[in-house]
Structures are given as C-alpha cells and as structure tokens.
C-alpha cells in the first residue's frame, strides 16, 4: 500500500523533496505539502483505493506522513466492509 501512496504523492503532492528520499514516518508538511495539494492527494487516494474519505478524517493528522495515510486508508477499507 505504501508504494501506491508514494506513487500518488509523486504525482499529486507537489513536494519539493523527491518522494524516494522520504521515510514512511517523515512529516509531509515539512516536505512541502500544502493544504491545496492535500485536496489533490485525497482525491487520488479515493480513486486508487476505491474508498471515500469521511469528514472527520479530513485533518492535518491524516495527511501527516505516508504511514498515517496508510492507517487512514486501512481504516476506511475495513469500514467499507462493515457497511
């Protein structure tokens, strides 16, 4: 999952650091993620992982790192199964 997130970040996040240089725990805002680019990342994640973000997950925390995004996607996927 992290590889696909990395692919999305390199395509949509407009980071000024190459995604390959980032660890899964590195802070994406420190790497140059802006609030507007966050929106693009979110829409790409929805498309690639067939999930829909819930309102309460639209926080800075969700988009903080590759691993926080992976956790959010995992929770959305498991949530989708229960509905």
């Amino acid at each position: 999952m992290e590889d696909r997130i990395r692919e999305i970040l390199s395509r949509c996040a407009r980071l000024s650091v190459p995604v390959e240089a980032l660890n899964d725990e590195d802070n994406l805002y420190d790497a140059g993620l802006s609030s507007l680019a966050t929106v693009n990342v979110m829409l790409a994640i929805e498309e690639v992982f067939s999930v829909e973000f819930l309102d309460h997950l639209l926080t800075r925390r969700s988009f903080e790192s590759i691993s926080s995004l992976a956790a959010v996607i995992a929770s959305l996927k498991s949530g989708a199964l229960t509905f």
Partner: protein
Amino acid sequence: MKDFGTLIDRARTAAIIAAAHADSVDIESCFPHESLEGLKQNRLLGLLIPERFGGPGATLRDVALVCRILGQACGSSALIYAMHQIQVACLVATARGAAWQEAFLRRANADQLLLASVTSEVGTGGNIRSSLCAPEYEGNRLTLRKRSPAISYGEHADAFLVTARRSNEAPSSDQILIVAERTDSALVETSRWNALGMRGTDSKGFDISFSANAAQIISVPFDDIAQHTMLPTSHILWGSVWLGIATDATEKARAFLRNEAHHNADALPPGAVRLEKAVSMLSSMRARLDSAVNEYLNIQISDREALPLGFLAEVNGLKIAMSEAALAAVHHAMLICGIAGYKYGTPFSLGRHMRDLHSAPLMVNNDRIAANTAALLVAQRASLMKE
C-alpha cells in the same frame, strides 16, 4: 485609558477626515497621510489586540464595521486599514507564548504602529503560498533580502510581515512569516504605483533587506497562518471595504434621484428602477458578510487540526461574490446618475468608486480563487446545506 467614545463615533470621525482628502489622494496618487493620522488619533489601528497584550480586544466584526465606514469615505484609506488589520490578526492568532511577538503587540497598540505585508515576490507567478528568498542565519540573527513587485504603503509602514522559505534547503512551499521592523529594514524602490484605482495605497515595488532576531520568526508555519487567519480575514475585511464603497455610490444615486424628484415628482428618470437593484445588492452583501464573520468567530475555538474545507470554500466564495456585487451596484448607480455620475467634480461623481472597485476581482485573481474553491468543494464531505 482615555475614553475615546464609541467605536462607531471614532470610526466616523476618522472617516470624515478620510473623505475630505479622498479626491486629492486619488488625483495625486499619494498616500493618505491625513487619514492615517485620523486613524491613529482615534486609536483605531490596534483594535484587534487583546486586553492581555494591552489592547482593546475588539473582534473581527468590529473591525469589519470600521472598514465599511471608511470604505464609504475613501477606498484607499479603507483598504490600507483593512490590510493593516489582516497583519495584526495574523500576529494576534500566533503570539500566545511568544515573548517577542507579545511585546511587539503591546508596542503596536501603544504607538499605533502601521503594519504592511510583504508576501508577493518576483518570480513566484503571483502565488503567495510559495517563496524563493530564504534567510541567512548567523547565531540568533538573520538577514533576508526579498524582491517584491508590490508592497502596499511600504514607505509608510512601521513594520512588515514578510514571507520566506524556512532555509536555503527548504522547498518553496515551506514558508515562515517574519516580523521586520522598519528601523532594521532598507527599501529600494523598483517600480512606481500609477494605477487605475486604489491610487492612495502607494503599492510600489521594492527590494527589501532587513536583519532580525530569530525570535521575530513566527513559530506557526505560514501555511497554517494563511488558511486559518490570513485568508479568511482578508476576504472578510476586503469585502467590508468594497461594501462601504458600493454603499457610498448607492447613496449618491439615491441623492441624485431625490434631487430629480424635487424638480419633477411625476416622472423619475428611467434609471430609477435600478435603485431597488443596487440597494438589494447591498443587502445581500451585508448578509453574506455577517454570516462569514459569525462562522469565522465560531471556528476559532474548534479543532485547528481539522482541514476547514467548507469554511475556506465559503470565504473564497464570499470574496468572489462581494467583488462582483460591489462593481455591479456601482454600475447601477452610474446608470441612475448618468452624465452627473460619469463626470468628475459633481456631487454625484462615481469615477473613483468604479475605478477603486475594479481592483477587487484581481487582488488575488477571482479566476484563481474560483479554481481553488472548486477543488475544495469537490473534496468537502459535509452537506452543502448548512444546518
């Protein structure tokens, strides 16, 4: 503290001074020194500064009202006042626990300091969320040089809030905001300000260089300040200025019609029906502004971690709607007054109002804002029907 009367009285006193000089400021394209003195004498520059920092602790609603009253007098003076208050709001929102900023705010109120913004930079394509310049650090001091295509009232400000990249290694979007004092700054003029409207804002281009203590860097990242404070307060206060200008134009149109009615009560001029449209526009603008101010004051206490997509979309929509409606209202007023509005030097002249308001759709281009807002609205998950 000396009692300076009610806020509205003080704003009106300052507005009378601004109105007396509005035409000469416009014709000569010069900074409204008399207006600024009037604002200082009436202690209006530090309004937003909280009591814990020695200020009167007024709300954004109060300041929006002052902007509207000033807008009815002189568009340039009102816009300068609004731009100054946006800087104050950014400092107030981030100063808690920061000793340098707290002391600066105390001084800003005591001495009625005028603060200017240095966000635009040559080479960033008008995107203020991106910086090229970065400070050079030496011990706990820093120096910065920035080439700005426009610093409104730059020559007349006591301090500047300047955006920059965090360091030479940081990406262009990793921005910090630094408070630079005029006494530590050097400005070299690079372009003149001779514009269609808002001529008194004296928005010349400058190369600015300054030195500062590292403590003068605001600890909150600029991305956060921009979306939580700068963007909403800008759109609310600019909108208030535009509403003020449109209100004055509509008042002139009404005075024109009243004058005509005195001469011939049976038949008002054909443009008279437009008065209803113009007044109705003012009413919609006021309602939308009030709603945005209420939402802003409520959101302050909520979770700063949440991405306020819906609110950002709302204040972006506010900016676009206010800029368009204000121009439309003045257009109605012009058609009501006819040649008396078109000419300079009549009691119904509307040229300055119309020229000033043509800045509204392009100070942060409406098309750029609309594109961003569309993305926000698509991403937003809350219902569009606000409960």
